[in-house]
């Protein structure tokens, strides 16, 4: 039950669905094409490689969603995440802090300066330390602007990361995992296969061994992060990568790590690399 793609697994999924939940039918479509506003084609299926020896192919979480959820992401007007991205665009040009500067003052138009930034996140900073996008944003605020740090999952931060991520939409995920990044990547990989909590489940138990199945009436995806930040219908708001990790670990009834912890940065790098070649969708819609 590892392949989403072949028609046969689709039939299996439907059977599993009935068996596990009693819900009659659902319509995730492994052959669906993600096209934004009829113009921008995004890659939702990418070939596997040595990073993911146990995945025959890489799939965006978008493929596992019901048609209504998928449709909401295909139209920028209907995608509620765009409200956050617009708020982020406003923040980009708003001066803040003792230096009286805005992001725009140093970085210019985000369309140019931030293109590709999401696709390469997280990456090592100048001191060789692994940072997530939130770290870079807050470092600019506290060290360069003389402004207060934003909360990791606060409205301002998620609006800003939505806006910045949008500038990489359609670009393939491509993170550095060798050289000085290698120890972080290995730490992340070890976490991915660690069984957490009373349920003794690892990320891999669900997102590598069981994707395509239903769990609590939710279609299990490969747990990719190419779509982040994500507008979750459940939260009616933007969810950060670390927030999602936290929820997933909590579901195994384990103590979880904090957003912005070193553990989650390392895990983010590893999970990002598992999606190499998939398009950045930021900002996506998920249930």
């Amino acid at each position, binding site marked *: 039950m590892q392949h989403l793609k072949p028609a046969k697994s689709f039939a299996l999924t439907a059977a599993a669905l009935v068996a596990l939940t009693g819900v009659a039918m659902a319509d995730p479509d492994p052959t669906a094409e993600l096209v934004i506003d009829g113009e921008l084609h995004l890659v939702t299926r990418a070939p596997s490689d040595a990073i993911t020896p146990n995945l025959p192919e890489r799939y965006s979480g978008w493929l596992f969603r019901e048609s209504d959820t998928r449709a909401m992401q295909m139209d920028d007007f209907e995608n509620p995440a*765009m*409200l956050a991205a617009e708020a982020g665009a406003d923040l980009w040009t708003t001066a803040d802090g003792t230096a009286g500067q805005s992001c725009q003052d140093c970085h210019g138009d985000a369309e140019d300066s931030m293109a590709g930034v999401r696709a390469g996140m997280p990456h090592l900073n100048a001191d060789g330390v692994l940072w997530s996008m939130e770290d870079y944003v807050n470092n600019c605020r506290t060290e360069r602007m003389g402004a207060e740090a934003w909360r990791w999952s606060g409205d301002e931060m998620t609006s800003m990361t939505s806006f910045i991520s949008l500038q990489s939409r359609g670009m393939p995920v491509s993170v550095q995992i060798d050289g000085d990044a290698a120890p972080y990547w290995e730490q992340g990989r070890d976490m991915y296969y660690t069984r957490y909590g009373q349920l003794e489940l690892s990320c891999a138990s669900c997102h590598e061994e069981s994707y395509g199945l239903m769990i609590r009436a939710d279609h299990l995806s490969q747990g990719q992060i190419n779509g982040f930040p994500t507008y979750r219908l459940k939260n009616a708001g933007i969810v950060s990568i670390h927030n999602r990790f936290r929820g997933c670990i909590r579901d195994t009834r384990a103590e979880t790590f904090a957003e912005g912890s070193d553990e989650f940065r390392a895990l983010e790098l590893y999970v990002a690399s598992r999606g190499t070649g998939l398009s950045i969708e930021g900002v996506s819609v998920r249930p």
Partner: protein
Amino acid sequence: MTEVRPRIRLPRSASAGDSIVVKTLINHDMESGQRRNSAGETIPRQIINRFTCEFGGVMVIDAALEPAISANPYLEFEAVVPASGEFVFTWYDDNGEVYTATEAFEVS
């Protein structure tokens, strides 16, 4: 909550007398009044309770909204555009605030 920002989508063009699809979205929590905060207290209701759209001074739709409308309320409907004119969209918040957006529309 962050600043309220209405979004409107109209078709690029239309002929006089056409019926066009109008889409609107506004960021708003639509706090239902049924949720509790972490301290167990009920969070007071605060929703957009009414939405109206007029074109050229003529009423298109008048909607009375309840807490069962999702956060960031989305409304789509059709309007007749007999001639070029202005759309006026109005959202009424429980807290007494009124948000208005206008959009000129040219027919060919």
